[in-house]
Protein backbone atom coordinates (compact mmCIF):
# COMPACT_ATOMS: atom_id res chain seq x y z
CA UNK A 1 0.00 0.00 0.00
CA UNK A 2 1.30 3.38 -1.00
CA UNK A 3 1.16 6.15 1.53
CA UNK A 4 -1.61 8.63 0.88
CA UNK A 5 -2.27 12.11 2.20
CA UNK A 6 -5.79 13.47 1.86
CA UNK A 7 -6.66 16.96 3.00
CA UNK A 8 -10.32 17.74 3.63
CA UNK A 9 -11.52 20.96 5.29
CA UNK A 10 -12.39 20.44 8.97
CA UNK A 11 -15.63 22.34 9.04
CA UNK A 12 -18.04 21.93 6.15
CA UNK A 13 -21.44 23.54 5.76
CA UNK A 14 -24.15 21.98 3.62
CA UNK A 15 -24.08 23.25 0.03
CA UNK A 16 -20.52 24.48 0.35
CA UNK A 17 -17.87 23.93 -2.35
CA UNK A 18 -14.85 22.37 -0.70
CA UNK A 19 -11.31 21.85 -2.01
CA UNK A 20 -9.78 18.42 -1.56
CA UNK A 21 -6.04 17.91 -1.91
CA UNK A 22 -4.52 14.47 -2.40
CA UNK A 23 -0.98 13.15 -2.57
CA UNK A 24 0.04 9.54 -3.14
CA UNK A 25 3.49 8.03 -2.83
CA UNK A 26 4.47 6.68 -6.26
CA UNK A 27 7.66 6.93 -8.33
CA UNK A 28 5.83 7.57 -11.65
CA UNK A 29 8.65 5.95 -13.64
CA UNK A 30 8.22 7.64 -17.02
CA UNK A 31 9.58 4.87 -19.27
CA UNK A 32 12.01 7.30 -20.93
CA UNK A 33 14.79 7.26 -18.36
CA UNK A 34 17.81 4.95 -18.56
CA UNK A 35 18.65 3.13 -15.35
CA UNK A 36 22.08 2.46 -13.84
CA UNK A 37 22.73 -0.35 -16.37
CA UNK A 38 22.04 1.95 -19.34
CA UNK A 39 18.77 0.27 -20.28
CA UNK A 40 15.54 2.22 -20.26
CA UNK A 41 13.57 1.60 -17.07
CA UNK A 42 10.14 0.27 -18.04
CA UNK A 43 7.19 2.56 -17.51
CA UNK A 44 5.40 2.29 -14.17
CA UNK A 45 2.93 5.13 -13.66
CA UNK A 46 -0.50 5.76 -12.26
CA UNK A 47 -2.97 6.04 -15.13
CA UNK A 48 -6.25 7.04 -13.59
CA UNK A 49 -7.69 8.75 -10.54
CA UNK A 50 -11.37 8.79 -9.67
CA UNK A 51 -13.24 10.51 -6.87
CA UNK A 52 -16.77 9.43 -5.98
CA UNK A 53 -19.07 10.84 -3.35
CA UNK A 54 -21.68 8.30 -2.25
CA UNK A 55 -21.02 6.38 -5.49
CA UNK A 56 -21.62 9.42 -7.67
CA UNK A 57 -18.65 10.53 -9.78
CA UNK A 58 -17.29 13.91 -8.70
CA UNK A 59 -13.94 14.13 -10.41
CA UNK A 60 -11.69 11.92 -12.53
CA UNK A 61 -8.30 12.36 -14.16
CA UNK A 62 -6.06 10.47 -16.60
CA UNK A 63 -2.33 10.80 -16.09
CA UNK A 64 0.52 10.69 -18.62
CA UNK A 65 4.19 10.19 -17.71
CA UNK A 66 4.46 14.02 -17.53
CA UNK A 67 2.88 13.95 -14.06
CA UNK A 68 5.54 14.35 -11.39
CA UNK A 69 6.46 11.60 -8.93
CA UNK A 70 4.16 11.33 -5.91
CA UNK A 71 1.16 12.70 -7.86
CA UNK A 72 -0.53 15.66 -6.24
CA UNK A 73 -4.06 16.56 -7.22
CA UNK A 74 -6.43 19.22 -6.01
CA UNK A 75 -10.08 19.45 -6.98
CA UNK A 76 -13.34 20.86 -5.67
CA UNK A 77 -16.75 19.39 -4.95
CA UNK A 78 -20.13 20.54 -3.71
CA UNK A 79 -21.22 18.87 -0.48
CA UNK A 80 -25.01 18.81 -0.10
CA UNK A 81 -25.13 16.35 2.80
CA UNK A 82 -22.84 14.06 4.78
CA UNK A 83 -21.48 11.08 2.90
CA UNK A 84 -18.49 8.97 2.00
CA UNK A 85 -15.77 10.11 -0.35
CA UNK A 86 -14.06 7.28 -2.24
CA UNK A 87 -10.75 7.98 -3.94
CA UNK A 88 -9.23 5.41 -6.25
CA UNK A 89 -5.86 5.33 -8.01
CA UNK A 90 -5.19 2.81 -10.79
CA UNK A 91 -1.91 2.30 -12.57
CA UNK A 92 0.56 0.09 -14.41
CA UNK A 93 1.53 -3.35 -13.05
CA UNK A 94 -1.90 -3.80 -11.52
CA UNK A 95 -1.67 -0.86 -9.13
CA UNK A 96 -5.06 -0.27 -7.56
CA UNK A 97 -5.63 1.55 -4.29
CA UNK A 98 -8.84 2.85 -2.82
CA UNK A 99 -9.17 5.21 0.14
CA UNK A 100 -12.41 6.27 1.77
CA UNK A 101 -13.08 9.26 3.98
CA UNK A 102 -16.23 10.23 5.81
CA UNK A 103 -17.38 13.77 5.08
CA UNK A 104 -19.72 15.22 7.69
CA UNK A 105 -21.47 18.55 7.25
CA UNK A 106 -21.77 20.86 10.22
Amino acid at each position, binding site marked *: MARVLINIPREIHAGETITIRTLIQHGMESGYRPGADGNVVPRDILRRFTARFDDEPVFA*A*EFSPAIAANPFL*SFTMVVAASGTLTLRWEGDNGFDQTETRRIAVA
Partner: protein
Amino acid sequence: MNTPRRLLLLAAPTLLLPPATARASPEAMAAALREFTGGAAVTPGRVAMDISPLVENGNTVPLSVIVDSPMSEADHVSAIAIFNERNPQPHVITAHYSPRSGQALLATHIRLATSQRLLAVAALSDGTFWSDSAQVIVTLAACLEG
Protein backbone atom coordinates in the same frame (compact mmCIF):
# COMPACT_ATOMS: atom_id res chain seq x y z
CA MET B 1 38.19 -3.70 -51.13
CA ASN B 2 37.78 -0.13 -50.04
CA THR B 3 34.04 -0.19 -50.44
CA PRO B 4 33.09 -1.43 -46.95
CA ARG B 5 35.28 1.24 -45.37
CA ARG B 6 33.74 3.96 -47.54
CA LEU B 7 30.30 2.74 -46.71
CA LEU B 8 31.17 2.82 -43.05
CA LEU B 9 32.45 6.38 -43.41
CA LEU B 10 29.25 7.41 -45.14
CA ALA B 11 27.22 5.81 -42.39
CA ALA B 12 29.31 7.37 -39.61
CA PRO B 13 27.22 10.52 -39.09
CA THR B 14 24.07 8.46 -38.61
CA LEU B 15 25.86 6.15 -36.18
CA LEU B 16 26.83 9.13 -34.08
CA LEU B 17 23.26 10.33 -33.76
CA PRO B 18 21.59 9.42 -30.48
CA PRO B 19 19.01 6.65 -30.75
CA ALA B 20 15.70 7.91 -32.04
CA THR B 21 13.49 8.67 -29.06
CA ALA B 22 9.87 9.72 -29.03
CA ARG B 23 9.58 13.51 -28.81
CA ALA B 24 6.55 15.67 -28.68
CA SER B 25 6.58 18.50 -31.19
CA PRO B 26 4.16 21.30 -32.01
CA GLU B 27 2.70 18.91 -34.62
CA ALA B 28 2.33 16.08 -32.09
CA MET B 29 0.68 18.53 -29.69
CA ALA B 30 -1.74 19.62 -32.42
CA ALA B 31 -2.55 15.95 -33.08
CA ALA B 32 -3.18 15.26 -29.38
CA LEU B 33 -5.34 18.38 -29.22
CA ARG B 34 -7.36 17.22 -32.24
CA GLU B 35 -7.94 13.90 -30.48
CA PHE B 36 -9.31 15.76 -27.46
CA THR B 37 -11.48 18.26 -29.35
CA GLY B 38 -12.48 16.02 -32.23
CA GLY B 39 -11.39 18.76 -34.62
CA ALA B 40 -13.61 21.48 -33.11
CA ALA B 41 -12.35 25.07 -33.00
CA VAL B 42 -10.57 26.18 -29.82
CA THR B 43 -11.02 29.79 -28.73
CA PRO B 44 -8.53 31.48 -26.41
CA GLY B 45 -10.22 32.74 -23.24
CA ARG B 46 -12.22 31.73 -20.13
CA VAL B 47 -9.34 29.46 -19.04
CA ALA B 48 -6.65 30.74 -16.69
CA MET B 49 -3.49 28.66 -16.38
CA ASP B 50 -1.18 29.51 -13.52
CA ILE B 51 2.41 28.32 -13.84
CA SER B 52 5.69 29.96 -12.93
CA PRO B 53 7.24 31.47 -16.10
CA LEU B 54 10.73 30.56 -14.86
CA VAL B 55 10.99 26.98 -13.63
CA GLU B 56 14.13 26.00 -11.73
CA ASN B 57 13.39 22.30 -11.45
CA GLY B 58 11.48 20.57 -14.22
CA ASN B 59 10.89 17.45 -12.13
CA THR B 60 8.09 19.01 -10.12
CA VAL B 61 6.36 22.05 -11.52
CA PRO B 62 3.19 23.25 -9.75
CA LEU B 63 0.46 24.00 -12.26
CA SER B 64 -3.09 25.10 -11.73
CA VAL B 65 -5.92 25.76 -14.14
CA ILE B 66 -9.21 27.44 -13.39
CA VAL B 67 -12.05 27.90 -15.85
CA ASP B 68 -14.61 30.65 -15.56
CA SER B 69 -17.91 28.75 -15.50
CA PRO B 70 -21.12 28.75 -13.41
CA MET B 71 -20.88 24.91 -13.22
CA SER B 72 -24.64 24.52 -13.52
CA GLU B 73 -26.43 21.58 -15.13
CA ALA B 74 -26.93 23.62 -18.33
CA ASP B 75 -23.51 25.26 -18.49
CA HIS B 76 -20.50 23.51 -16.99
CA VAL B 77 -16.99 22.43 -17.82
CA SER B 78 -16.89 18.73 -18.69
CA ALA B 79 -13.13 18.32 -19.07
CA ILE B 80 -9.79 20.09 -18.88
CA ALA B 81 -6.72 18.78 -20.70
CA ILE B 82 -3.12 19.97 -20.56
CA PHE B 83 -0.73 19.58 -23.49
CA ASN B 84 2.96 20.34 -23.97
CA GLU B 85 5.24 20.82 -26.96
CA ARG B 86 8.57 19.33 -25.99
CA ASN B 87 8.17 16.49 -23.47
CA PRO B 88 8.46 12.93 -24.81
CA GLN B 89 4.64 12.83 -24.99
CA PRO B 90 2.35 15.76 -25.82
CA HIS B 91 -0.35 14.82 -23.31
CA VAL B 92 0.01 15.71 -19.62
CA ILE B 93 -3.34 15.20 -17.91
CA THR B 94 -7.05 15.12 -18.66
CA ALA B 95 -9.51 15.85 -15.85
CA HIS B 96 -13.27 15.29 -15.95
CA TYR B 97 -15.89 17.40 -14.19
CA SER B 98 -19.59 17.47 -13.49
CA PRO B 99 -21.89 20.12 -11.98
CA ARG B 100 -21.14 18.40 -8.65
CA SER B 101 -17.56 19.67 -8.93
CA GLY B 102 -18.76 23.17 -8.02
CA GLN B 103 -15.77 24.76 -9.67
CA ALA B 104 -13.63 23.85 -12.68
CA LEU B 105 -10.31 23.75 -10.90
CA LEU B 106 -7.31 21.54 -11.50
CA ALA B 107 -4.05 21.70 -9.57
CA THR B 108 -1.22 19.22 -9.92
CA HIS B 109 2.56 18.91 -10.25
CA ILE B 110 3.99 18.12 -13.67
CA ARG B 111 7.33 17.32 -15.33
CA LEU B 112 8.89 19.54 -17.98
CA ALA B 113 11.74 18.24 -20.13
CA THR B 114 12.76 21.66 -21.44
CA SER B 115 11.62 25.24 -22.02
CA GLN B 116 8.39 25.09 -23.95
CA ARG B 117 4.84 26.21 -24.45
CA LEU B 118 1.98 24.63 -22.49
CA LEU B 119 -1.64 24.60 -23.54
CA ALA B 120 -4.69 24.13 -21.31
CA VAL B 121 -7.96 23.36 -23.07
CA ALA B 122 -11.39 23.23 -21.44
CA ALA B 123 -14.32 21.35 -22.96
CA LEU B 124 -17.68 22.91 -22.06
CA SER B 125 -21.03 21.16 -21.84
CA ASP B 126 -22.30 23.22 -24.80
CA GLY B 127 -19.62 21.67 -27.04
CA THR B 128 -17.29 24.66 -27.23
CA PHE B 129 -13.58 24.56 -26.42
CA TRP B 130 -11.58 27.30 -24.71
CA SER B 131 -7.87 27.55 -24.08
CA ASP B 132 -4.99 29.35 -22.44
CA SER B 133 -1.30 28.93 -23.16
CA ALA B 134 1.86 29.68 -21.22
CA GLN B 135 5.51 29.88 -22.19
CA VAL B 136 7.86 28.49 -19.55
CA ILE B 137 11.64 28.54 -19.22
CA VAL B 138 13.12 25.48 -17.53
CA THR B 139 16.64 25.70 -16.10
CA LEU B 140 16.94 22.12 -14.80
CA ALA B 141 15.12 19.61 -16.98
CA ALA B 142 13.15 16.63 -15.70
CA CYS B 143 15.47 13.65 -15.73
CA LEU B 144 15.24 11.99 -19.10
CA GLU B 145 18.96 11.33 -19.46
CA GLY B 146 19.33 9.40 -16.20
